[in-house]
């Protein structure tokens, strides 16, 4: 090992995508995508419908294998052939699904406790304390732990799903449409909640969203997916500087552009 790599060892980027291609049958979704997300960044992924944002997200978390190319999280391949390494890596990120994806047969408490119990390291007393702490973090009360997912409102489902995604103290949080289906007031609350937690816990965030308010509130960087590749990536100002019809259209409504510009600059 060289002296240089010993002294100035850099932490690998949270996400490193190289030459990623996706193809379903004859339909090409992604062509040769490169993307880096450094630890601590909050990246917003935007693109028209059907541009493959959610597909890219699923490839990042390893739910879907790309046709070509590689995805590395923290310098480690997501689809590593070694199942132990794969399982360890999966414990380092949390995903918030669009509909919450709470286990409908388990109560809120058991939903959040589920990943902790799967570790098989903690006793029930400690799990209970951790779950109550996470519930507190997402501003829910201990009595909400007894409710079943079917009894929750849309905003509460998102909060519980966030608490579950955070239960293993992830270094990376992947959000699929975090504020879809919430009214503007709740959506703003939820954005502030994620922002506050990010500040306290320092995780990296990657999200897909259509909502300019959410983008402005959360994203420190933007990546624009169009024409099967990433046409622009950088801070909001850098992205606006790129001349591309989708970018012009997406940020054409004055309010959206103003919100994002204001939030990100």
């Amino acid at each position: 090992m060289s002296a240089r790599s010993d002294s100035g060892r850099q932490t690998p980027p949270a996400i490193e995508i190289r030459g990623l291609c996706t193809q379903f049958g004859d339909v090409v979704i992604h062509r040769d995508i490169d993307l880096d997300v450094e630890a601590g960044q909050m990246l917003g992924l935007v693109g028209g419908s059907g541009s493959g944002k959610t597909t890219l997200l699923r490839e990042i978390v390893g739910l879907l294998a790309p046709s070509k190319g590689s995805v590395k999280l923290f310098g480690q391949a997501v689809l590593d052939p070694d199942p132990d390494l794969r399982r360890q890596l999966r414990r380092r990120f949390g995903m918030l699904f669009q509909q919450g994806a709470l286990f409908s047969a388990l109560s809120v408490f058991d939903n959040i406790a589920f990943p902790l119990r799967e570790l098989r390291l903690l006793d029930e007393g400690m799990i209970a304390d951790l779950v109550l702490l996470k519930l507190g973090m997402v501003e829910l009360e201990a009595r909400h732990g007894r409710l079943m997912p079917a009894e929750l409102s849309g905003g509460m489902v998102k909060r519980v799903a966030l608490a579950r995604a955070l239960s293993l103290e992830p270094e990376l949080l992947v959000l699929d449409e975090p504020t879809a289906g919430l009214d503007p007031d709740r959506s703003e609350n939820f954005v502030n909640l994620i922002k506050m937690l990010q500040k306290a816990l320092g995780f990296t965030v990657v999200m897909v969203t259509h909502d300019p308010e959410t983008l402005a509130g959360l994203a420190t960087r933007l990546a624009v997916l169009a024409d099967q590749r990433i046409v622009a990536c950088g801070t909001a100002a850098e992205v606006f500087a790129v001349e591309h019809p989708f970018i012009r259209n997406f940020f054409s409504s004055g309010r959206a552009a103003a919100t994002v510009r204001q939030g990100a600059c």
Partner: protein
Amino acid sequence: MTVATIETVRQADGAQIRLSGEWTLVTLPPPIAGLELRLRDLASGNTCWDLQPIERMDSAGAILLWRAWGRQWPASLAVSGAHRSLLERVEAISADVEPEQPSASWTWIRLLGGGALAAIGHLAALLALIGQMLLDVAHLCVHPGDIPWREFSANLYKSGAQALPVTALIGFLIGIVLSYLSALQLATFGADVFIVNLLGISIVRELGPVLVAVLVAGRSGSAMTAQIGVMRVTEEIDALATMGVSRSLRLVLPKVLALALAMPLLVIWCSAAGIVGGMVAAKLQMDLSFGFFIDTLPKVVPVANVWIGLGKGAVFGVLIALIACHFGLRVKPNTESLSSRTTTSVVTSITVAILVDAVFAVLTRGVGLP
């Protein structure tokens, strides 16, 4: 990555516990319970803690310390600001809320009462469903244009036509088994030719309808419960209601009518396959010719038996479809409820079919027997 370490530092005014390394869920050395015990031991004798050398701590580490301290701050604590705020957040956890315990007395009476009430509830709902269906039929008599022909034929195809291969196979195999076993017994009495009477009566009157009922309850009944159940979970039934489409007319009635028609046909089909199986086995086992078998069958099995078999088929079909739809409509929006309702639906339909079969046997004891 540095492992969490605990050191005891001797000082003039007593010992100080110094923690360093990474105190996170991922890096804590297992078993964590052992670590907690060790910390607790240390905490009981020492009140001086230095957490400043800790590199990283997450809420799992903070909770571990907090529990080791007996849920209170130690007398003297040196800690960085970020970690202090984390510990303060742990301190703010409200005391564990215990779920209300049901009173232990009279548990079995409560269970019995609950079961009885649930059974009455199911019966009442089933009765309401039947009443609604009769109203629907009356409505269709007045407005024949509203008859859901497409749903009816789709159900007829799915639960009738597609069930033909499996019912034939099962019927044929049961016929062979029955014929083979009876032949052994009859041969000891020299009563070989009575195999025709035995097979004819038992298959046409009893086995055909019951076998088909069990198969259809497992095949189509479960599918109906699951389909209606998922439609409830995904709010499709509510969507139908907002469009002014009656769920009983569009979902329940076509299923009930389709099974009422398909079941008797399946019974005939299954009984025929059973008799063919029995005939083949009789030929192989006792060298009884096909011609003799076919010739004797109508003479020893009165035609009333066929009508009884057909009647049973129709009644079982209606019951299976009604029970399947009833449980489907009672599915709550979670996966557990869907699976338990589907199980209950199949078990109930099979039990009810066999119960009704017994009632049939008592009521028709004087009919169709030579």
